[in-house]
């Protein structure tokens, strides 16, 4: 059973037909005034459509639209951490790990290069110069060599004056 307001809305929208239309119009107290009001309402509707350019939504469409908007808002909202935020995000941790690994690799290569047997000569003791007093040992000769086994550098001096066994005293 439709109320008067429902029938009025349907009449204004031109949705009443047949017997229902006749009964409603017969029930109107002032049909001329009602017709004028209907025309005004239709003009207003046309004006609103023209000016706002928006489609009039039905109730189902309106709720569906609201629901879609809410879902979109919730989906688009950034996920905030529940606890206190920290600088060490997963990405930064990965970067820091990569940088640390790179430093470790470079340091390791440096140490390995330092220990490379092919370059050990610079780590042997070097004799820059050696001198024997010619007045004391005029026939002395000097030679230098390395023992590769345990990296001993030898300054070999020949021709020094021999000394008696007493000089071996502690």
């Amino acid at each position: 059973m439709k109320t008067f307001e429902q029938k009025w809305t349907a009449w204004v929208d031109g949705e009443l037909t047949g017997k229902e239309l006749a009964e409603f119009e017969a029930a109107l107290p002032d049909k001329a005034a009602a017709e004028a009001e209907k025309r005004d309402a239709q003009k207003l509707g046309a004006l609103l459509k023209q000016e706002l350019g928006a489609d009039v939504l039905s109730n189902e469409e309106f709720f569906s639209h609201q629901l879609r908007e809410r879902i979109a808002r919730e989906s688009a909202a950034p996920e905030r951490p529940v606890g206190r935020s920290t600088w060490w995000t997963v990405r930064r941790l990965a970067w820091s790990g990569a940088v640390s690994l790179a430093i470790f690799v470079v340091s390791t290569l440096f140490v390995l290069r330092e220990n490379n047997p092919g370059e050990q000569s610079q780590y042997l003791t070097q004799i820059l110069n050696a001198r024997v007093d010619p007045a004391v040992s005029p026939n002395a000769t000097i030679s230098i060599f390395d023992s590769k086994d345990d990296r001993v550098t030898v300054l070999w001096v020949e021709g020094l004056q021999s000394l008696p066994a007493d000089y071996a005293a502690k």
Partner: protein
Amino acid sequence: MHKQRLIFTIVFALVMSATVSLPAAQTVWSGLVIAENVPQPAPMPPELTSIGQTLKELFGYNQFDVIGQSTKTLRTGQEDWLASSKYFGLHVDARGETPVGYLVDLKLYKEKDLLLETETKLSKRSPLVIKGPLVGSGQLLLVLMVQ
């Protein structure tokens, strides 16, 4: 902000690695050694154990006796010291650090006579052995090593 922290992390790591590689105080052992051949050789002195076999092969003696020695801990690399026996004196004058050890001047004295002098870059990994004069039936050796 992100870049600043990244740079700080890298600099911190580099400083730490540099700190780890800083040279610590080193101990230098210097000794006067008489090498000779005897029927019953005494055991190799503990200071020479690491190079004992090389000494035997190089000089052909079976006994090595330390007649004078000195152990010096170098903190500045500018120290000097004397290892002496009754008649010999080995003056060691460290004149600074090098990337691999120390720059040292050595002077061997027989009483007051200077027999030999040398300027050496002593490496921490490489002992120095100097063949000195013949003494009796043996040989005087000078040994310098960073322990």
